[in-house]
């Protein structure tokens, strides 16, 4: 769901439009339905900016690359047995659990 506005340009000689007024949207109707809206370029620019802003919201900043600290922590916490010895002795485990 992109909010950005796609823009096309046409020459003024090919259409007849009323003079746009800043702060006013002129709605052109056809068979009672809105067919087009004429905006002052300044209002259109503001609308486009708002649309771009909405598009950019939700995009997060990329994380910085791994630092030496991050590499050290990653190895420490993602390597089983790096922080503490791996206890794989069944009898010892049972004995320790019995004391808990």
């Amino acid at each position: 769901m992109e909010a950005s506005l796609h823009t096309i340009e046409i020459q003024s000689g090919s259409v007849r439009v009323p003079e746009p007024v800043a702060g006013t949207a002129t709605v052109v109707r056809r068979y009672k339905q809105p067919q087009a809206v004429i905006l002052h370029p300044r209002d259109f620019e503001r609308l486009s900016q708002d649309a771009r802003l909405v598009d950019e919201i939700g995009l997060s900043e990329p994380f910085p690359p791994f630092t030496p600290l991050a590499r050290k922590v990653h190895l420490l916490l993602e390597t089983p047995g790096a922080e503490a010895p791996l206890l794989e002795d069944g009898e010892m485990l049972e004995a320790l659990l019995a004391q808990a």
Partner: protein
Amino acid sequence: MSERIGHAVWALAPYAPEAPFRLYPGPGDRPPVVASNIKPLRAALTRGGDAEVTVLTPAKVRPVLVVAEASDTSYDPGLLVLRLLSFDKLGEAERAQVREGKDPRYFHLHPSGFKDLPQENAAIVSTLTRVAQTAVEPGSLGALNRNELRVIHERIAAYFRLDLGAMVRRMVLERAAGTPRPEP
């Protein structure tokens, strides 16, 4: 906000199973069965009737920070937690880096808010892990406030490159249209 979210707790936190996989052979004296990687394991289990296996994976009882839980805990009792980095594993310069927040991977847990943690710690954004409620010991070791938790959620989204754009845009457009939002 659930009473657990934002709290540090003791939990049995497993490592992600990695190849070679050690498979529990059932009761008896047999040593674990080893599968070198995922491909032969998938083929074997498909031939075995799409069976499941018990993987022997290391785990550690450690303090973790609860960052989220399922919307309906009666059906999904899982919690999302971050592992903590104990400061006793770091040199003084590294501790200072973490305290000053120079790397967004680490969120310093100020000791004044976490008096029952055995050491000064930081939550590690990259270690998002799902644990069951039954793998968590009752009782809190300290807690973040709502704003601190929001920062952590934002960093998790950034680290894992979650694209929240569609959700945020929809929320902004709904607000602009005056659609009332449900209470959190």
